[in-house]
């Protein structure tokens, strides 16, 4: 069985797989995680702001995003972003948006919903005395959040945020539905060109597995190291 395998196809396509494919996947993961975290924190602050309408809008957004399949959201944004771009820039036709920009916007908006729930839990885990002490010191709301609450919330939630980023790393493979050459897309292109589905998909699975395993092992170590004993 293994005798029919052509492992050379992997060696021949290594540079395409990693330099083009994996770079796309990792860049998309890193930028989406950063953007998702920033927007997610803003959404979490909206939810906890105490203003009814703002909290309601943020909650609706989070619940809405979390009840849709990522594949559907990817399609939505793929077709919607050109029209949004047209509306923002005021041009007369829908603007052209590249594959990378489109998937980046999708993942930032989608992950923001998930990151916001994590940050909300993080902010709520800070004891009441902290913001009270901050305002007693004369800090404004923005200063309280910037210097007191958010740094601690972020630190407490770091392992969960990183775990969510590993999930995000795996989810980026779904840009396959737009025929974008991320790591899996690149592997699939080679597989179909050379008729070597078995080798390429097994190799892709092995790479995703190895990276996720190492990453989640590091998160577990980090978790035990930064755990605060109270």
């Amino acid at each position, binding site marked *: *069985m293994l005798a029919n395998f052509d492992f050379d196809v992997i060696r021949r396509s290594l540079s395409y797989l990693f330099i083009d494919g994996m770079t796309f996947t990792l860049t998309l993961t890193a930028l989406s995680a950063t953007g998702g975290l920033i927007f997610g924190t803003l959404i979490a602050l909206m939810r906890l702001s105490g203003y009814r309408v703002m909290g309601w809008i943020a909650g609706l957004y989070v619940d809405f995003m979390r*009840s849709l*399949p990522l*594949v*559907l959201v990817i399609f939505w944004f793929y077709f919607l972003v050109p029209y949004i771009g047209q509306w923002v820039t005021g041009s007369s036709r829908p603007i052209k948006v590249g594959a990378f920009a489109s998937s980046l916007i999708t993942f930032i908006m989608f992950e923001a919903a998930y990151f916001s729930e994590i940050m909300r839990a993080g902010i709520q885990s800070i004891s009441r005395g902290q913001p009270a002490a901050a305002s007693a010191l004369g800090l404004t709301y923005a200063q309280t959040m910037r210097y007191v609450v958010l740094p601690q919330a972020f630190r407490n939630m770091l392992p969960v945020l990183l775990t969510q980023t590993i999930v995000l790393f*795996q989810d980026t493979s*779904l840009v396959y539905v737009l025929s974008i050459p991320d790591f*899996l897309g690149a592997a699939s292109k080679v597989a179909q060109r050379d008729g070597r589905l078995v080798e390429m998909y097994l190799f892709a699975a092995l790479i995703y597995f190895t990276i996720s395993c190492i990453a989640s092992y590091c998160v577990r170590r980090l978790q035990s190291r930064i755990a605060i004993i109270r």
Partner: protein
Amino acid sequence: MNYTWNWHIFLEPNPTGAGTYLDMLLAGLKVTIVTSLSAWVIALIFGTIVGILRSLPSRLATWIGFLYVEFFRNMPLLVQLFLWFFVLPELLPRTAGLWLKQMPNAPFYTAAVGIGLFMSARVAVQLAAGIGSLPRGQKMAATALGLTTLQTYRYVLLPMAFRIILPPLTSEFLNTVKNSAVAITIGLIELTGAARAMQEFSFQVFEAFSAATLMYLVINVIVVIGMRLLERAVAIPGYITGK
């Protein structure tokens, strides 16, 4: 926005010749529901077995449970579906592989098994946590009453653990429904696939996706309400899950 809305599109006949576009979406909805339910049954069965393994005092059992969970959790679902769909038939002996390839409805069975096993790892983790959260006294009392390990799990630990993990299981079931959309990549025409097909035939992108979005929201609401009722029905008075 120079997009021409046409909400009447749903009532126009679809190009496959079987009813309207709405019928096409509803057929997709049915596939989504059937796939999710089949996958959920598989996830519950395997998740329960592996969850129990993870909670047993035996080192070997815990180790097997750990490996199972790590295997299914560290690969994207899409890659797992490709492995089941494209790779498995090639690795099997010739006749078995051929049988798999020629099976009618292959995308459906692949999706049900693939998504089911993927979700089973998550169910297993939840269940093991649920069993771990029970007071030690429960297991000891069961042993003192002369129950075997199997009986202890069957009559004491599992009924309690499942009640405790009902809320996270609800979100895992919703994840199963959402994950069924990934099966579009192996050619299953479920709800997202049907919306995509409708968009390709009719060019009414946003109507198609709006309808699919609405249907997913309705599924979510129904599942959440149903699970609330179930939670209330099985709650044990005076215990963690009771009121």
